[in-house]
């Protein structure tokens, strides 16, 4: 199982979703991805989108001014 990291705090719609999706597509089943994201649209929709893609949200925590989302493919 590999661990991956993705920072989308500087991205805007639709690239927040696009980058998360493409990263997940590159990962193997069972790999873990940590995503650093902002409040608003990314926080409201990236976790939901990831679950719709068949991945599992492990945790979602505040990380300073951002949020840290951990998911497993």
């Amino acid at each position, binding site marked *: 199982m590999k661990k991956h990291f993705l920072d989308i705090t*500087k*991205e*805007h*719609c*639709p*690239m927040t*979703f*696009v980058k*998360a*999706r*493409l990263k997940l597509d590159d990962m193997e089943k069972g790999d873990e991805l940590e995503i650093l994201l902002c409040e608003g649209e990314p926080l409201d*929709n990236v976790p939901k*989108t990831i679950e*719709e*893609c*068949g991945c599992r949200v492990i945790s979602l925590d505040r990380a300073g001014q951002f949020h840290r989302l951990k998911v497993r493919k």
Partner: protein
Amino acid sequence: MDKKEKLSLIVFSGDFDKAIAAFTLATGAAATNREVNMFFTFWGLNIIRKNKGRAFTGSGVLARTFNFLMGGVKKLPLSRFNFLGISPKLMTYMMKKKNVATLDELIEAAKALKINFIACEMAMQILEIKKEDLIDEVKAVVGVPTFLDLAKDGMTLFI
């Protein structure tokens, strides 16, 4: 698993800003697990030409002139305040400065997300554009019935 939602876009416009709108919607939809079709017709075909600048495509004088004047993705005009082609460059500069995806980046994202690019057979006939004049990601050249079959049971937008 539930059947995927579907978004089909009829990309009629060859305007720079409308192309950005079309690709923003398309990539956002594909990234959020929707099936996406982009049907390029008339001026929208300029976005997916292999030749990004100006080129004399076709055999007839009118078609060659039209195709040269329209050009490819690097020559798309802004729908308002184009100012002889300066505005799209300024807009791209502003987008980069604000860290917003440019049209080139959105097109690359659409390819990476395997969005279904299809081209209008009738418009290509009029403008004397061949499939080999379009980017390799264009899967098929189709007519209205095929597009309607692809778009069936989903949302369709005209841009």
